[in-house]
């Protein structure tokens, strides 16, 4: 349930269809402190922020976007509950480019007797499409204030707040509950009265919108988008790492820390643990900040941009036919792409799946074969300078395994997915503020959730490696590491640390002077190996302990089995 406010705080709901620019309005109306909450007993999350405007103080709830309130989905249930929970005002966002469909929710909201203000948003896009709407008439038809807005350009937002302030506390009659058919004919009447449309020559964006849902040229465009994205993340990451972060870390931070520590601690185990080759302060700075962070940062820039531009659902449409052969509806391609950033939010994102089977399959694919951005950074450090074909091989292999795992699970699991029914949103330039807020939240989560365990892993690595514990441990698992995988026994450290963080299964190999075959084998182990501890945790939370353990054990088995196979096949050719 929602947290109750202090007495003088208002409870304001921001509602609307999906893809009407609700999140942009939300980020513009609220301050910096934004929280994501979960509606108890559901998988639906909503965002809460504060409005602090002269004469208008309260919490603004970004209600999940819904097309209606008929309670046919969890999101609709949550929306209804939030309204019944004591809303003081509803700000309902309407999409001017598709008024008729938006009016469905708009009219249903009037049945609750809560003061409403409508924001007629995306007016610039509507104008571009040759649509004009008589705002005054619409306001009369709806019996409530309608504010024309172009949220992305900050137009109409002040008016929205001023009007919200005015209607707080006004008494509103509940409107009569209409049957669907009656409501729809009423909508047709309203639209006929308020909207005029002239045919316009399609603009470049409209042409692009059309091309990106056609197999031709949509599929080549999709490849181009993916190649550019990859180029930005991989190329940009390498540049940032080599040109900026590594020099700073190696020439300034590390020597400084080594000097400081050496001043206080004499030579010996403790000094080695802190600043030896594997020392906490040495790799603890270099790995997370120079090798991993640039890739994660650039990945989230690219992904958030694609997400906010409205492009990703188009990929889902293009990929649906093919992915469905694996038993996965196309829209999951977005979740899978998210997994290339980090598996944790991607697995939470599988909540959007339409069946349990679909959800389990996507989560498994992500855990098995989708390397996260941290891991990509580690792979590039390991293989990028030695053998680019090996790097490409690893990523091709991950695709093959995804297909194999998908096909197998589709055969073994029972369940049907919902057919694709999806509104393809307009393409638009992402709003800077909404984009930066999202990027900030994502980076914050990465730094808190990922860097913490990573530092713990590095502390363990430092202690184990610098104190000699590793040597005795290596003996125990050396049959696997040395005979089956063909790696030096020091590589045992990778297997051990890979449990904590995925990229830690790769990074210790950096120091070992391996042959190309050994590098490939090591990378394959890391690719399929147990997702990190955080993934294990999120699988337990989102699914069950059984699912988490099954995925955990099968990934370890697959990793070692497969990498060993590659080692033995590879040895035949070397």
């Amino acid at each position: 349930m929602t947290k109750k406010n202090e007495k003088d705080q208002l409870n304001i709901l921001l509602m609307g269809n999906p893809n009407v620019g609700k999140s942009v309005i939300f980020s513009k109306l609220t301050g910096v402190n934004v929280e994501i909450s979960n509606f108890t007993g559901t998988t639906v999350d909503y965002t809460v922020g504060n409005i602090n405007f002269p004469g208008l103080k309260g919490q603004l709830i970004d209600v999940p976007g819904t097309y209606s309130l008929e309670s046919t989905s969890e999101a609709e249930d949550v929306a209804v509950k939030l309204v019944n929970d004591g809303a003081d005002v509803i700000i309902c966002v309407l999409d001017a480019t598709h008024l008729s469909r938006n009016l469905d929710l708009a009219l249903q909201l009037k049945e609750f007797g809560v003061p409403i203000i409508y924001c007629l948003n995306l007016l610039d896009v509507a104008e571009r499409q040759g649509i004009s709407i008589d705002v005054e008439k619409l306001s009369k038809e709806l019996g409530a204030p309608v504010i024309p807005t172009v949220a992305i350009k900050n137009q109409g937002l002040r008016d929205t707040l001023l009007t919200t302030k005015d209607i707080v506390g006004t008494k509103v009659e509940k409107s009569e509950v209409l049957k669907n058919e009656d409501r729809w004919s009423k909508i047709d009447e309203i639209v006929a009265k308020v909207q005029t449309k002239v045919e316009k020559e399609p603009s470049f964006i409209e042409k692009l919108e059309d091309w990106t849902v056609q197999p031709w040229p949509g599929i080549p465009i999709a490849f181009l988008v993916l190649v550019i994205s990859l180029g930005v993340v991989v190329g940009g990451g390498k540049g940032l790492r080599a040109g900026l972060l590594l020099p700073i870390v190696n020439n300034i931070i590390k020597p400084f820390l080594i000097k400081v520590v050496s001043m206080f601690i004499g030579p010996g185990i403790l000094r080695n643990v802190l600043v030896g080759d594997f020392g906490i302060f040495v790799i603890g700075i270099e790995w997370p900040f120079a090798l991993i962070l640039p890739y994660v940062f650039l990945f989230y820039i690219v992904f958030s941009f694609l997400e906010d531009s409205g492009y990703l659902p188009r990929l889902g449409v293009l990929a649906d036919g093919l992915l469905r052969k694996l038993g996965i509806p196309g829209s999951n391609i977005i979740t899978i792409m998210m997994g290339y950033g980090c598996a944790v939010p991607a697995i939470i994102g599988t909540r959007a799946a339409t069946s349990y089977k679909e959800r389990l399959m996507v989560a498994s694919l992500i855990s098995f074969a989708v390397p996260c951005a941290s891991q990509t950074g580690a792979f590039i450090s390991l293989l990028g300078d030695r053998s680019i074909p090996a790097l490409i091989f690893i990523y091709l292999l991950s695709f093959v395994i995804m297909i194999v795992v998908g096909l197998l699970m589709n055969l073994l699991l029972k369940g049907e997915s919902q057919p694709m029914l999806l509104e393809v949103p307009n393409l638009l330039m992402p709003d800077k503020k909404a984009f930066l807020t999202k990027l900030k939240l994502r980076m914050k989560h990465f730094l808190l959730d990922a860097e913490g365990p990573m530092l713990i892993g590095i502390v363990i690595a430092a202690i184990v490696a610098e104190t000699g514990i590793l040597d005795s441990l290596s003996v125990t698992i050396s049959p696997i590491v040395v005979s089956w995988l063909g790696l030096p026994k020091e590589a045992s450290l990778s297997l051990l640390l890979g449990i904590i963080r995925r990229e830690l299964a790769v990074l210790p190999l950096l120091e070992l002077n391996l042959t190309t075959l050994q590098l490939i084998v090591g990378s394959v182990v890391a690719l399929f190996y147990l997702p990190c501890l955080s993934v294990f945790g999120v699988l337990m939370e989102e699914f069950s302990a059984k699912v988490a353990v099954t995925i955990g054990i099968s990934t370890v088995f697959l990793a070692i089995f497969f990498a060993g196979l590659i080692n033995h096949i590879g040895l035949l050719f070397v």
Partner: protein
Amino acid sequence: MVLRKGKKNQRYEIEESPNIHLLTVLGIRKGIEVIIQSKQMFGGPVVVRAGNRSIAIASNVAEEIKVREVV
């Protein structure tokens, strides 16, 4: 005929549509006119334009939508 068999860039009026909630709230219901914008490979969805928006409809659902050509 059914929507799935329709031609690209052709305008159709919907005569009968299955009672799927999401479909109706997306504006795909009896009496509405749509233009087929694209058809996807490998049995992927049919994308139609209804008003100013594009809506992707799975081919098995498009199979159940009865339409009439509009000239």
